[in-house]
């Protein structure tokens, strides 16, 4: 190709790429941007399913948000669920990944067994754990009864209910962490650890000083992705606790649902959703930057 025709060919190519992109841009515009714009508009309105609507726009939903004690409670519940859920998922997932790669070698069945919980749809996860936390039904309670130990009813206390959701969430999501960490572990050349061993490092030292630093991008990615998903908690709360006891497990996403679909206050629900959306926008910006740094 001569140097003269190259710019023209490139321009033509770029036009081709743009045409391939166009349907998706169009579809994202319709399926995603339009609803989001609708949500934004609603959040400034006074739309109410029962009380009626005057289409009177303003900041009052956001003013109300700032002093809403139930919202603060929901942020607390969300934070507890996110923090402990992500923490246990990352720890358990990483432990299993290290175990699978080091202790058991290439044990494929083990990998599939540990993957299984990830395949169970969240509603089923919630129902199964609800059954495990129902004292009259649970085999765990029955087992401890044999020794005269009464397992407390988790779902009737505030912290117990939060813990129950964290456990169900951890059970279904640790395989995700496991997969990512396992893949990252397998991507590390064994030469590096051998070199460390030749230099006189113990296994523990080489794990902490050679392997672990190389896993940091994977850990970071997994933590961020799990954290963002944890902001969307819904089926487990809906099935296991309905936000209770009291309002103790009413995480923010669930609270927005309650305001919109139970209290019929659509405008206020939308304002809560917008707030969550802004949080997600900040985090996803950071993730996108991180991803760009890793890939380039």
């Amino acid at each position, binding site marked *: 190709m001569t140097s003269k025709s190259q710019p023209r060919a490139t321009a033509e190519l770029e036009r081709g790429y743009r045409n391939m992109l166009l349907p998706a841009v169009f579809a994202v515009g319709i399926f995603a941007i339009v609803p989001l714009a609708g949500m934004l508009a609603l959040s400034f309105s006074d739309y109410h399913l029962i009380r009626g609507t005057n289409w009177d726009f303003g900041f009052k939903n956001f003013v109300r948000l700032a002093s809403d004690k139930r919202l603060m409670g929901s942020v607390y519940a969300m934070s507890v669920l996110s923090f402990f859920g992500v923490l246990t998922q990352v720890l358990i997932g990483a432990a299993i990944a290290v175990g699978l790669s080091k202790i058991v070698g290439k044990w494929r069945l083990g990998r599939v067994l540990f993957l299984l919980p990830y395949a169970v749809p969240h509603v089923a996860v919630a129902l199964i754990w609800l059954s495990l936390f129902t004292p009259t039904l649970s085999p765990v309670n029955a087992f401890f009864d044999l020794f005269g130990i009464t397992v407390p009813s988790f779902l009737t206390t505030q912290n117990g209910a939060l813990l129950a959701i964290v456990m169900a969430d951890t059970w279904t999501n640790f395989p995700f962490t496991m997969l990512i960490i396992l893949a990252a572990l397998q991507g590390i050349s064994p030469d590096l650890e051998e070199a460390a061993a030749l230099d006189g490092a113990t296994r523990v030292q080489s794990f902490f000083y050679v392997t672990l630093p190389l896993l940091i991008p994977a850990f970071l990615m997994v933590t961020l992705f799990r954290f963002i998903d944890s902001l969307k908690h819904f089926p487990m709360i809906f099935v296991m606790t309905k936000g209770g006891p009291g309002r103790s497990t009413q995480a923010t996403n669930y609270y927005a649902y309650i305001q919109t679909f139970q209290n019929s206050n659509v405008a206020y629900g939308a304002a809560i959703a917008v707030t969550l959306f802004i949080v*997600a926008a900040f985090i996803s910006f950071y993730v996108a930057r991180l*991803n760009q740094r890793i890939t380039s």
Partner: protein
Amino acid sequence: MIDNTSSFRVKKAFGVTMMLVLLFFAALPTVWVLIMSFREQAAIFEPIWESPLAVTLDNYRGIARSDFPKALLNSFICAGSSTLLAMIVGVPAGFALAKSRLSGKFYASWLLLLLRMAPPVGFVIPLFLLYVNAGLIDTYFGLIVAYMTLTLPLIVWSMWNSFAQVPDELIEAAIMDGATLGKAFMQVALPAARPGAVAAAILGFLIVWNDFFYALIITRSSTVTAPVAVMNFISYDSVDWGSIAVASIALTLPILPLMVIANRYIVQSLSGAVKG
């Protein structure tokens, strides 16, 4: 190097014990739901060791006779159609994003991530109001379109990562040989990224199959999907645990093979680079 010191053996035993404990944690709910699905209704609240022989297929027969199979079919229809539509639109877009020199790709990646991470309640509120007014509540069309908000960003994002791993030279060579961009895409890039495309389709299918929230809000009885239909086994005064167990199994079994196939690619769909 074989390390046989006793301290190493202690550590190894500790590791194996840990793995067994974790395996127990991973397996208990699965084993329990299988047991529950075969228990007689009358015996379900008894400890299993008191009536180990109270085994029956009634729960399975009951599910087969209920509306649940239709809900499973609805799930298949919605997950299949919205994934197919999103693939048709999203695969070329992923290719274009991976290979073109367009500016603003960073913002495209941000937008895709944001759409994936945005709280579903934000999409559902306006969709619900729109659907109520347009008569789209409880229609396949409405549900499939709504699910595009889940599948499209996921598929574009993961195809972007897959195509990024196809060497640029391959496509440049095809174009030098006189192929059009469309041909280079169909005959060179797409075959090279086929595992990624299969994985993207599977992930799209799974995300819809799993969905509870959208279906809860925008379906009623006729297009209700399986995750919402399970809730019918819970009434105000009683919970039909046997049926719930069978329904949970029925919800999981169809996607289990997909999960086993796709698990290697879940990593890729996040980011090609995390692989290490």
